[in-house]
């Protein structure tokens, strides 16, 4: 009965979404407050019913109800409880349900916390949410129903793909979807604003917390996914430019641009068209990612579904929403009132630069991701666009942006002073230059590495210098600096942390890619191998049994200068039901660096293939995003209004003849915001 109640709740959620798609828009058009007022309760009701649906499916998985096809195909009675639960979204149908559940969650949150929104904006936003939701409910019900039944029920299930039987599955997809789907709110706000024809600084203020929350989750989700791939695949790689990874990275790039752009809009009433466009693009890229992963057009670890009917359906959703919103944009955007003016060299100008670079960077990834698909469609031949393309093109491009990052916060709103900013950054520049030369000098040839490390130091030092200036560190008594630091708004802390975090990530990436050591060899018990500063001895092999697998673990002792540091036990697990093996890597962290050991097959002579890696500063790759997300959180918790005080015209304004409403004082070469 519980299964069918869950199924019925899903159908009811769809029915409510249909109602929510129509009534609020009708109300907003005709100015009827009561029709608009149905939006909030419908959104909350939708969430309630989807929650019932999700609970029913989780229940079916937990009690191993093999009369549900989804449970048969993805569960096993011997699977540990955690994986019975996480296995719910470790498959196509369940992950689509997670998708709509998070969509409904965000709709419910807007309904709940949206009391400060104008009624018509709220009604339109929730209606647009309901359009998206309706499309996906229909998709789930007609092509990917998680409640399909089978009778008579099999006695045992096929088990979950062993690669997915990991704590990563409990964290990565929900976080990633919170990010992906969270950007639907920004999308809905953008479409609602276009419908209403009114977009102003207040709009940006309302969108800010939603896009920020989505961005935090996406940042954490991507970092978590990367670390999961790193420790579970056994090859020490942490980013493969796999289309599935790109599918999550592209919305992140666009979403990052959106965040910056929305700040300008909230503070300065400028960059409106940029912001609307980025809101539409970000979610469009999320939809594209969903299409790439869920339709099965790719064949990778992530693509579980290979049903063309599904692909065509999602493609139709994709065309409808991206095409529809862009058409609406093209139609309504020219009618938007232009916002504040600013000079090219100004905080606004810097953020336009940032938007441009992030958007083009996103386009570079998009081309690299879609080109093989288009090529295959056109010629039938398969090609791959490998990491060299991405590393070279995207890397070089984004390096320019990173080099510019420290300048942005140094520039004043409206009209800035580039030379002054450069002067204030001399310390950061000197530090970066010293580090670059110190690395490059002893080892000629490693210029690129030295420049990369220098760039990372530059970004981090730039963030610290900006922060130090704000609290007048070393220029005022320490007490005053501390009290200033305490008084710094969360949003400012957020920026400093986020910019520092990206520098950390770059440091980790450059260090790991340049100084990574690798040994692959066959080891017999008793053998010792040296990697980095460590001696690794294979003490012996230990067979073990888990609940649903058998494993062969290698017991390795790690010594440094003869002194025992730690033990590692990487293993190979054999899963009987799916007859698949997975690798459990052994990782020891020393400072920010890691010793990474993966175990391969054992041959007849008793020698085991062992892959050892020494990865200097590798954890910074994930700690950086963690710090960035922390910065996002600091900004999210900052409930204050954001204002951007412009630098007034150079001539002091006399009391009597202050600037009237006659427009801003003309800066040199004024530049329209849009």
């Amino acid at each position: 009965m519980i299964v069918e109640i869950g199924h019925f709740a899903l159908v009811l959620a769809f029915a409510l979404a249909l109602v929510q798609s129509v009534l609020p828009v009708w109300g907003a058009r005709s100015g009827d407050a009561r029709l608009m007022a149905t939006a909030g309760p419908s959104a909350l009701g939708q969430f309630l019913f989807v929650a019932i649906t999700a609970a029913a499916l989780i229940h079916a998985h937990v009690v191993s109800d093999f009369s549900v096809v989804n449970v048969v195909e993805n569960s096993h009675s011997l699977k540990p409880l955690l994986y019975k639960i996480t296995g719910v979204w470790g498959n196509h149908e369940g992950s689509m349900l997670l998708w709509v559940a998070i969509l409904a969650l965000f709709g419910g949150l807007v309904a709940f916390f949206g009391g400060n929104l104008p009624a018509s904006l709220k009604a339109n936003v929730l209606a647009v949410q309901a359009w998206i939701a309706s499309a996906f409910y229909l998709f789930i019900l007609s092509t990917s129903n998680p409640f399909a039944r089978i009778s008579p029920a099999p006695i045992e299930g096929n088990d979950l793909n062993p690669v997915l039987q990991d704590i990563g599955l409990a964290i990565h997809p929900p976080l990633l979807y919170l990010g992906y789907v969270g950007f639907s709110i920004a999308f809905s706000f953008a479409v609602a604003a276009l419908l209403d024809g009114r977009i102003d600084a207040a709009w940006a203020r309302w969108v800010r917390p939603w896009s920020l929350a989505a961005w935090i989750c996406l940042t954490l989700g991507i970092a978590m996914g990367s670390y999961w791939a790193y420790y579970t695949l056994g090859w020490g790689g942490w980013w493969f430019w796999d289309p599935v990874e790109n599918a999550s990275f592209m919305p992140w790039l666009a979403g990052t641009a959106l965040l910056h752009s929305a700040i300008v809009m909230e503070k300065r009433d400028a960059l409106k068209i940029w912001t609307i466009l980025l809101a539409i693009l970000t979610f469009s890229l999320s939809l594209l990612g969903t299409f790439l992963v869920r339709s099965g057009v790719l064949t990778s670890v992530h693509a579980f579904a290979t049903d063309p009917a599904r692909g065509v359906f999602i493609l139709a959703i994709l065309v409808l929403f991206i095409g529809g919103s862009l058409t609406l944009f093209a139609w309504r955007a020219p009618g938007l009132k232009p916002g504040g003016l600013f000079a090219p060299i100004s905080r606004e100008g810097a953020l336009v630069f940032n938007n441009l670079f992030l958007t083009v960077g996103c386009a570079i990834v998009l081309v690299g991701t879609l080109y093989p698909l288009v090529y295959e469609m056109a010629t039938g031949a398969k090609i791959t666009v490998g990491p060299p393309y991405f590393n070279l093109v995207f890397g070089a491009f984004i390096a320019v942006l990173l080099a510019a990052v420290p300048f942005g916060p140094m520039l004043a709103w409206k009209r800035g002073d580039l030379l002054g900013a450069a002067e204030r950054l001399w310390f950061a520049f000197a530090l970066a230059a010293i580090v670059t030369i110190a690395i490059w000098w002893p080892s000629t040839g490693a210029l690129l590495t030295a420049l990369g490390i220098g760039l990372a130091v530059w970004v981090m030092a730039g963030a610290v210098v900006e922060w130090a200036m704000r609290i007048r560190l070393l220029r005022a008594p320490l007490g005053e600096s501390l009290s200033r630091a305490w008084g710094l708004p969360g949003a400012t802390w957020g920026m400093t942390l986020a910019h520092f975090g990206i520098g950390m990530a770059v440091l980790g990436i450059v260090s790991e890619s340049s100084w990574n050591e690798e040994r692959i060899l066959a080891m017999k018990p008793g053998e010792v191998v040296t990697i980095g500063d460590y001696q690794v001895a294979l003490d012996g092999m230990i067979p073990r049994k888990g609940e649903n697998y058998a494993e062969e673990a290698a017991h390795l002792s790690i010594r440094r200068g003869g002194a025992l540091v730690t033990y590692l036990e990487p293993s190979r697990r054999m899963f009987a039901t799916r007859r698949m093996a997975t690798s459990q890597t052994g990782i020891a962290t020393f400072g920010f660096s890691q010793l990474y050991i993966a175990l391969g097959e054992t041959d007849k002579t008793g020698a085991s293939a062992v892959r050892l890696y020494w990865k200097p500063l590798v954890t910074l790759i994930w700690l950086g995003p963690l710090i960035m997300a922390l910065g996002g959180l600091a900004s999210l918790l900052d409930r204050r209004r954001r204002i951007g005080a412009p630098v007034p015209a150079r001539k002091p304004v006399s009391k009597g003849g202050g600037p009237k409403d006659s427009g801003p004082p003309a800066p040199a070469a004024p530049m329209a915001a849009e």
Partner: protein
Amino acid sequence: MVLWIVFAVMTAAAALIVIVPLNRARARATSGEEIRVYADQLDEVGRDRDRGVIGEREAEAARIEIARRLIRADQAATPAATLGGRSRNIATVAAIVLIPAAALGLYSKFGNPSLPDQPLADRKVEALDERSPEALIAMLDAQLAKNPDDVRGWDIAGPIYFRIGRLDDAAKAFANAIRLGGPSLPREIGLGQALMTTANGRVTPEAKAAFEAALRIEPAFPLARMYLALALSQDGHLAESAAAWKALVADGKPGDPWLYAAKRQLAGVEAAIAQAANPASPANPSSPGTDTKPTADETAPTVAPGPAPSGDATPSPDSQNMIEGMVTRLAERLDKDGGTAEDWGKLVRSYLVLGRKDAAKAAIEKAHAAFAQDQAALTAFDAILNELGAAR
């Protein structure tokens, strides 16, 4: 019934979610939320100024800009009205009709209201014989996963996996049984057949090894000899293959189920030899070795002990030698290492087949001597002798 009541309640709740706000007496009809944002921003400017985050001149410029936005927002704000009853009535009716209609319509298409939940814990009580074969196989899988050292389990699993087409698993099961319980005729034959079927009927070197192992246990076992003969022709050793088939046919007695297949194979191989010698002659439509795949009966992995080749057919000199060689080896092994009642029975039967009655008698006596201390084995041996019709 309970289910439908729950559905009705849920549907009613969904409809009410829409209807209640539509008919609430005082719908919220405020406006001016933008104005509040800008007013807050103005306050924030003051606070920033007080804390010294921005200077007086910047604060003044910011105030002017925000005030400009505030005025614009104030002019744009139009209070939302609550219109009359018509649209509200349409919406209410739509909610009452559309929500249940859509929900029931879709559910009747996709739902299975008659299927109860079947959590596994409730189903363990099902009687064993009520279970489907799939269920039993799943139990077997689980049992073997739990106790991978269970010889009996592997012995049972091998033929079952083979029959349901899980050939890799079948081969693994037979190999595990051999590893854990030592070689036996059914295990070796099963392993060989599983390997061979996996290879689409090709007798791979591994399969060949298994059949040879089977012949070491039961030297005259026809099925193993057939597969080995097949292997010879598959490898292109046509003359040897023909000899092997001839020996088999010679050993067969009318009524043996495998005899017909063996004769056809022999004909095929001989035709192939003839064709190789004289390519001009019309080709045999069927190439040897592949045309007569072992029939379902022959490939059945549960190996019934083959009927003893009787002395009716006169074996060719070659095969006579081969058989005698095998029998001699068996006799030597039993003399040296001893053996089970079955082994001695095999030896006696072989001697009778070869027509060496004296040797058979001697073997019976030797066996009795060997089993003097073992009453159970003695009884078993006598039973075999009775079957053979061999008098003491």
